[in-house]
């Protein structure tokens, strides 16, 4: 896949640190328009931080992040809110508003950002819910939904205003195999139907390799591998091999670094 095609998101030499703890180190990434791209890596490797940087919730220590040609961290709050109206983000557990019904959750952005009459909002909400297969749940409260259903409702809410960029933070976490496959297919089909660009942050290799166009692997804050799903499957790089095949030991050690085992057990040497 050519990544030089017109890019919607461009990340150049980005470094980011929380206080003194360095999270991302010299990251360069390109997310072309119309593609679904996965960012993979173990827990705590900086994947979610990357999404927050793209969404403007965090500012990089150095480097630049451009979305649709605008440097996201150079925008004031008004500019940031203007560009966020063209973005959607699916949070790890959906983040549905628990005091609102499914219908009101999906209608939330339409009511906040448009002057559409309530009859049109009604039809649009039902269409969005129909697209994720949950039109029949519009009167339910989030607490009445299963985990997979809540994720799909959140997906309908994310695409409510037909965003140009959709970001997914661990969309497959905690789902049963059927929901996993449904959510995976929805990510792909909604992206293609809307002509959007999707960034999927995940550690579910098998599910994401089925639906994405390109993969980035992050470990310890740097990109250690990238490529198309076929290239990833065939990769002989130790980290990618361990990650894709879920091996217990490898470049990512099983044991957290500690003192001498015999000493910790007070054994005489």
């Amino acid at each position: 896949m050519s990544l030089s095609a017109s890019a919607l998101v461009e990340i150049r030499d980005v470094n980011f640190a929380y206080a003194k703890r360095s999270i991302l180190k010299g990251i360069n990434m390109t997310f072309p328009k119309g593609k679904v791209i996965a960012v993979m890596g173990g827990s705590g490797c900086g994947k979610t931080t990357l999404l927050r940087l793209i969404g403007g919730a965090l500012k990089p220590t150095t480097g630049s992040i451009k979305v649709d040609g605008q440097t996201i961290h150079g925008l004031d709050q008004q500019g940031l809110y203007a560009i966020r109206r063209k973005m959607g983000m699916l949070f790890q557990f959906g983040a549905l508003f628990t005091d609102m019904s499914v219908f009101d959750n999906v209608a939330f952005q339409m009511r906040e950002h448009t002057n559409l009459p309530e009859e049109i909002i009604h039809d649009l909400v039902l269409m969005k819910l129909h697209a994720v297969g949950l039109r029949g749940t519009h009167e339910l409260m989030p607490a009445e939904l299963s985990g997979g259903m809540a994720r799909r409702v959140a997906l309908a809410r994310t695409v409510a205003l037909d965003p140009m960029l959709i970001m997914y933070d661990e969309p497959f976490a905690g789902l049963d195999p059927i929901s996993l496959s449904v959510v995976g297919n929805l990510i792909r089909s909604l992206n293609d139907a809307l002509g959007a660009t999707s960034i999927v942050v995940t550690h579910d290799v098998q599910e994401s390799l089925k639906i994405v166009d390109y993969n980035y692997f992050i470990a310890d804050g740097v990109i250690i591998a990238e490529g198309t799903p076929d290239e990833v499957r065939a990769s002989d790089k130790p980290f990618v091999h361990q990650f894709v095949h879920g091996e217990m030991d490898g470049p990512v050690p099983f044991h957290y670094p500690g003192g001498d085992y015999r000493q910790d057990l007070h054994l005489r040497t």
Partner: protein
Amino acid sequence: MAIDKHLRSIGARVVDAVWRTGYATRFFALILIHSGTSFRRFRLTVKELFSSGVMSLIIILVAGTFVGMVLGLQGYETLKRYGSESALGSLVALSLVRELGPVLAALLFASRAGSAMTAEIGLMKATEQISAMEMMAVNPIARVVAPRFWAGVISLPLLSALFSAMGVFGGYVVGVVLIGVDEGSFWSQMQGAVDFQHDVLNGVLKSLVFGVAVTAIALFEGYDAPPTAEGVSGATTRTVVQSSLAILILDFILTAFMFRGN
């Protein structure tokens, strides 16, 4: 070395307290700046008025009645010694309107509605609902926090008034209906002793100040709560403790200014 460590920890605590005070002040300023939405879309505030005000009615009405009944009993026993049972009405009304109404209603409001606000906002933060709102280009201070703030500020004076009214009713039931104090002197003494501006308006002003303090503390603690179960429970406790102390300290200051020498 031990002293050095001790001094460092004191220093860190002071810096933390100053930082937190600044953060809280900034948060309060942001609520005021983003209050426009609360009035332009008043139904958002009305929804919160229901959950913080209407849902606190039962506890306020019941507590008010019983406090008034206790005042009636205790007041009668004390006044009887001086042969002034007829002054029971003014004693009950003045105690409630000036002090017990605003203070006890605010304490109950802090425990009932303040803690609920903290827990709700803390959990919204922990479940990423606040972040989701920000990512949808909706300002959570304007959409979530400010309507709750104004709902608290509006509802507490009304709840205090109801607390006092129920207290007067409780005092009447015990004093007049059960003990047999003369009904005419109960009401006429009350009418003569309570001054609208000096007593009633000052009481309302007190509950307005308490409303601002309790709601601002509750919202700040919720918004600042660490996004964990422990963090939210700690924030809820802090809301009740800090609000109660703030109410009692503010009450002393306000009373000193309002009723000094009267």
